[in-house]
């Protein structure tokens, strides 16, 4: 596997990878596979009709991980990739995806990753997805992730999505369908700068007794950037749902939060919270009395908020 320094840097940003990962992996670089390994329990194969992967995780697989980072360093690349994950009964795995784009050219670079997760009964997945953009070209860095999650009884999905720097345009769409006893938690952290736009839409259906979902977004919109957070939870059974959007706006940043709840069963219990505001003046003052400048104080507050 040959990766140059920029590609290695992107890999560090999106997957915390310094070397070839342990466990199963596929590294996609400029639309080519730059390395792949399956393990005894996790099989990764290429799709035939479309670009993408099929990842099959055997029932009962414990404490194994799958890394599928994507890096793009050629300006003007546009790709749509379909990755499907089949997670066997009672498996317990970590899946790390992520996309880093370095665009020094004048043409837009775009990666649309469509991920589908099929969790069998009792399966547990921790899914981490990081997005990162760099490069000073005029071409935009565009990422449009689509995620579909299908959870069988008593399965658990924990999703952590992070996009802190450098992505110009994102439309994220996440849908999840949960059977009885299944549990979904989403932690999204987002920061936008400049003229960036980020939209995030969630539709979660709680279809079985005891299903639960907790979708929490923390975000910071700086400069003239715009964010839209649209989270909808539908309760079709005795279930628990919670969605929260907690945001800081700075400069001329704008945020639109559209929490939505739909209860179709008398024992569905659904909550939403949304709060948008600038950094509290007293927080800045407190850190300044500890010797930080206003800019340093701001940085600490944001770092903490997006931790």
């Amino acid at each position, binding site marked *: 596997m040959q990766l140059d320094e920029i590609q290695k840097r992107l890999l560090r940003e999106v997957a915390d990878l310094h070397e070839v990962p342990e466990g199963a992996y596929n590294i996609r670089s400029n639309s080519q596979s730059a390395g792949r390994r399956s393990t005894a329990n996790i099989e990764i194969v290429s799709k035939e009709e479309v670009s993408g992967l099929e990842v099959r995780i055997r029932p009962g697989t414990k404490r194994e991980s799958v890394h599928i980072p994507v890096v793009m360093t050629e300006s003007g690349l546009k790709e749509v990739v379909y990755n499907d994950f089949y997670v066997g009964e009672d498996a317990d795995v970590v899946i790390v995806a992520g996309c880093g784009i370095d665009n020094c050219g004048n043409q837009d670079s775009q990666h649309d990753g469509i991920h589908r997760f099929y969790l069998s009964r009792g399966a547990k997945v921790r899914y981490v997805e990081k997005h990162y953009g760099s490069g000073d070209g005029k071409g935009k860095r565009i990422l449009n992730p689509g995620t579909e999650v299908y959870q069988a009884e008593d399965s658990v999905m924990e999703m952590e999505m992070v996009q802190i720097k450098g992505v110009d345009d994102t439309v994220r769409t996440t849908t999840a369908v949960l059977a009885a006893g299944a549990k979904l938690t989403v932690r999204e952290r987002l920061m936008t700068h400049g003229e960036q736009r980020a939209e995030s839409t969630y539709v979660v259906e709680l279809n079985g007794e005891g299903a639960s979902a907790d979708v929490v977004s923390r975000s910071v919109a700086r400069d003239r950037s715009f964010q839209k957070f649209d989270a909808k939870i539908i309760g079709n059974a005795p279930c628990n749902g919670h969605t929260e959007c907690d945001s800081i706006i700075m400069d001329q940043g704008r945020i639109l939060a559209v929490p939505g709840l739909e209860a179709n069963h008398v024992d569905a219990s659904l909550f939403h919270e949304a709060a948008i505001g600038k950094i509290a003046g007293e927080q800045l003052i407190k850190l300044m*009395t*500890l*010797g930080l400048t206003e800019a340093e104080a701001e940085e600490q507050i944001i770092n*903490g908020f997006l931790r």
Partner: protein
Amino acid sequence: MLELKNISFQVDSEGKGKEIIRNISMTVPDRKLIVVTGPNGGGKSTLAKLIAGIEKPTGGRIFFGGEDITDKSITERARMGIGYAFQQPVRFKGIRVLDLIRIAAGKSLTIAEACEYLSSVGLCARDYVDREVNASLSGGELKRIEIATVLARNAKLSVFDEPEAGIDLWSFRNLIDVFRRMRETIKDSSILIISHQERILNIADEIIVIKDGVVDRQGLRDEVYPSLNAGTAALASMECEGQIRAMGPEGGAE
């Protein structure tokens, strides 16, 4: 040494200027613990904010270590060695107690070092270092963490604005010990505490009584303290003391 010379502070109130502080001059000498007391609304907290740089005086000059700091920012004053504990501590989402103490110390403390500051304000350190300084902490816990951040600064002048406010009796006893220890190890630094509390007044070297925006009395504790006990306006407003007494010796609920 901190010197306030002819400090005034005026705010706009319904189109009219309202004087909160009127021509106050006072000195906080090195190696001394000074307690500022007096009725509520008399301007004590404003005085603390003027010292920390959170408010700017509308008249007069402030000197610290001989240097005129009147036009210096909060950050500059903090870096010169002025520490300030808020009466109502600020909450932060995502910032941990450990982070705040490290920021206060201005260096990367080990967890053990940070824990010492927490222990000294009566918090079981291991339970708190990783907690976020957010709404999950009680008022009393926040207050103690606030004081720990000021201890961690090793400031030349530490200003505490009503440290007893919002704190339970058990914590309060600890607090007195904290100030006693600070007084014993004061070296060349100085401490200014705004308080109504009899027990805090008791450990003062000097007491300054502020009333209606002016210094009503000032002097050594033994000179000023008896007059406070004689049923003056300052004592009449010591409602905190009344609450703590009412809880009894083993009381302590917040």
